[in-house]
Structure formats: structure tokens, C-alpha cells
């Protein structure tokens, strides 16, 4: 599927050329103008097709995949992540759960399905990005309610909080450097306070999101990886314990908020 949006490309160019007011006003106006129109709809369709597409040595679809609400149940599943799965004896985010289903149900090679989870600039979106986008849309409007009943889920929250404040690298940056205060911005970009319910709900509830400047849908896993790139840290791996811990920290702080993903971002 070829996804090329001339209008958006032109808009992105215009966004970069106009002298921006010292807030997100211009972009918010644009988002209002777009209303319910979000190029992510094409990616949602693609994700749904991939879910029902037989793949791998088993030539199986993902319909037998249990996202926590029973095999094949996709509606409302995403808002309960990250959560503990007894069959893997691990707390998983949606991305690592999908990897689990691809390897166990479809019989696909672990290295192959994790080799390139996130697209690079100028690429088409990846299978992982499409599946996550569709599954997030399957929870659109639902209340964010990550599981915190299992001891491993609660431990994951504590670990996430510790990593959130862990300062390291040549710049001494932690997640908290940018995300523990309200109403702040870096350059013109508003920064959510992820330690607060409001900020966490807004952030967790709006990813995955279509990034106009990149012409791609990005997942929360990618967002975290790119934050750490800017923190001057090494590269965060998809489905890693640190990634799942930080997502648990955010999702639990966001609990009670509404899932609005896929979002639309600059």
C-alpha cells in the first residue's frame, strides 16, 4: 500500500517555515481542523489485515493470540496492558505480546520478527507498527486500566519508577529531567508531566500516534527509544524489561484516563 500524503507533506514544510508562536497553538489549530481525520486510518486497516493474514511455518493467523481477554479478543485489550501472562510467566507490553504470538502461534523466528520493529524515516511502516495501531484503535474511547493484581505487575511499576529517575550518560539525563514538572516545554515542544495522572493519561492515551513530520505511525516503544537517544543513552530494545517497566509506570499513572490513540502529532 502506497501512503503518500502531499497535503501533509506541504503542511509539515509550512509548519517548519512559519515563525511559531511560543506555544503549540498553530499545531493545535491544525489538529482541530483535521477533526477525526487522521492518516493513521490507513495503518489501522493494514494492521487488521495483518492480524487475519496466515503467516509463518504454521501458516496461522493471529486469531488464536490471547491479549489477556481470551484468544482473538481485540476490543478493549490494549488498555489493560502492560500485564502479566501466565503462559510466558512475564509482564508484557503489547509489542512483546505480539512477538510471543508470532513465535508460538505462527512459528516465526524470534530474531526475524524483532529485527526491525520500528521503521526508519522514509520507510513504509512495519508490521509491528500496523498491528499496534489497529489494536490501539480497538480500545479507542476505553478507560485506561492496566492490570496491577499480580505481584510481578506491581514490581514492574516500582522498577519503572526507579528507571524513570535514573540519571546517567554524559548529560546526566533521566526521564524525570523533562517529565516530572507540569507546564514546561523544551524549545516549543510541550512536555507532559508523566508523574501526574493528567500528564500520564494524555501521553499514554495518545500513543501510538501518526507523526506528521515523519509520515509514519510511531508506537510508545519507539517514543521511549527516541527519548533515550536524546538522553545520550545506548539504544532501548523493544520488549526489554526497562521498556515494559517504564510503560507500566506510565500506564498505571494514566489509569482512569481515556484511550484516544492513534493520536496525531507534529
Amino acid at each position, binding site marked *: 500500500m502506497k501512503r503518500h500524503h502531499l497535503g501533509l507533506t506541504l503542511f509539515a514544510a509550512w509548519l517548519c517555515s512559519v515563525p511559531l508562536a511560543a506555544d503549540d497553538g498553530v499545531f493545535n489549530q491544525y489538529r482541530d481542523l483535521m477533526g477525526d481525520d487522521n492518516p493513521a486510518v490507513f495503518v489501522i486497516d493494514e494492521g487488521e489485515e495483518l492480524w487475519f493474514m496466515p503467516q509463518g511455518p504454521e501458516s496461522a493467523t493471529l486469531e488464536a493470540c490471547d491479549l489477556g481477554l481470551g484468544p482473538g479478543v481485540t476490543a478493549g485489550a490494549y488498555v489493560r496492558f502492560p500485564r502479566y501472562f501466565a503462559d510466558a510467566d512475564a509482564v508484557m507490553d503489547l509489542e512483546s505480546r505480539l512477538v510471543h504470538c508470532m513465535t508460538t502461534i505462527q512459528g516465526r523466528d524470534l530474531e526475524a520478527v524483532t529485527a526491525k520493529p520500528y521503521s526508519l524515516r522514509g520507510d513504509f511502516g512495519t508490521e509491528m507498527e500496523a498491528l499496534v495501531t489497529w489494536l490501539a484503535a480497538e480500545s479507542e474511547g476505553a478507560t485506561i486500566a492496566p492490570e496491577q493484581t499480580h505481584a510481578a505487575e506491581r514490581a514492574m511499576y516500582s522498577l519503572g519508577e526507579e528507571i524513570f529517575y535514573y540519571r546517567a550518560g554524559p*548529560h546526566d539525563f533521566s526521564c524525570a529531567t523533562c517529565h516530572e514538572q507540569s507546564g*514546561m516545554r*523544551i524549545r516549543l515542544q510541550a512536555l507532559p508531566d508523566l508523574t501526574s495522572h493528567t500528564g500520564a493519561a494524555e501521553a499514554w492515551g495518545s500513543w501510538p500516534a501518526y507523526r506528521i513530520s515523519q509520515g509514519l505511525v510511531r508506537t510508545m516503544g519507539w517514543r521511549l527509544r527516541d527519548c533515550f537517544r536524546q538522553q545520550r543513552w545506548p539504544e532501548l530494545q523493544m520488549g526489554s524489561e526497562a521498556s515494559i517497566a517504564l510503560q507500566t509506570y506510565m500506564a498505571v499513572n494514566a489509569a482512569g484516563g481515556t484511550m484516544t490513540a492513534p493520536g496525531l502529532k507534529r
Partner: protein
Amino acid sequence: MKALTAGITIILNASLMAWTVAADEIEAVLHNSFVAKNQATMERLERDAVQTACSAPRGMPLNNDMLASLRAERLDAVVLPADGKYLGDWQRGAEVAGNGRGLQSSDDPTQPNGGNCYACHQLAPDEVAYGTLGPSLMGYGARGQSEAMLQYTWTKLWDTHAYNLCSHMPRFGAQGILTEQQLKDVMAYLLDPASPVNQAAE
């Protein structure tokens, strides 16, 4: 021996900072969750004394004696300009202040690092794309160029923890992010009366 060392680490952490998760456990998780990429090596995940002391989640009790001695150590370690001259070229300083690149895995290591001052601070009144994590420094030059002011500003840039332990600001000198000459240029950008930082908005 290894178990003993780990035990001591946990006791130290418990008495100094009351971590809820042992530091060596977090380090093991990070080691398994990240991979080196270009100049962003795995060694960057290891914390020095400042980073460890400043990683306590908000609201955690801190040992004030330990923090005070750490701050004093940082002040002692500040390196003032070898030639005693604090002020370089404000025009080059403006480039450093606006440059957000340097030391990321995606950056070209042969290019000079930026200071990225505008990410967090307002400086020249005509630059509207400034962040608000740090205080506004517009008109900073009004503070004058006394020896005390020069040394204070240099120290802030060299190692912010010498004055304000656990400040969010990077240690531009102490961590080798900026060179001595770049720091002088940023000093001039802040303090030179001719710098845009010290002009009225047009």
C-alpha cells in the same frame, strides 16, 4: 566475595537513600535492556556519585550530610580558565547555545557538540523557540562582569552541582560536553553587552 559486595551495596543504599529496588538490580535490568549504538556505549549507563545521589525518586528522604560533602567536592573540582580570561566571542557562543547536537548515537562525533541552551532557557529576546525547564537568562549581562560574577557563571556552566546539587542542568565542563573555548564563547553570549541576549527586543 561477590555476594558480600552486593550485600554491602544494598546496606549502603538502604541507609543513604532508601531505594525501593536495589541499585544493582536496576543496573542488571538496564544492562539487559539496552545495546550500544555508535558513540552511545554501554558504559554510559554506569553512574558516578552525583548521578547516583540525584537518582532518588521525588519525595525520597536524602542524607543531607552526604549531599553537602558531595556538593563541596564538586566545587573543589571546578577548573577555571587556564589563562584567567572568561569571555570569548559571543557570536560563536550564539551557535553553541542554539546547537542541540552532540553525543547522541545519531550525531556525527567529528562535529563539535552543542550546548543546546535554548532547549531550556530564554536568552535573546528575538528567539521565540526557547524552552522553560530552566530560568530565563534574557538580559543576563545586566549582572555585570565582576570577578565574582565571572567565576559564578563559569562554575554554573562547568558543573551546576557545585552550587545546586541535583540541578537538572548538564555539567558542560566537568563532563567534557563543551571545550574551554566553547564555554568562553557561551560566557560572552551571556555577558557581553553587545550580545543579543543583552539587547532589547526589536
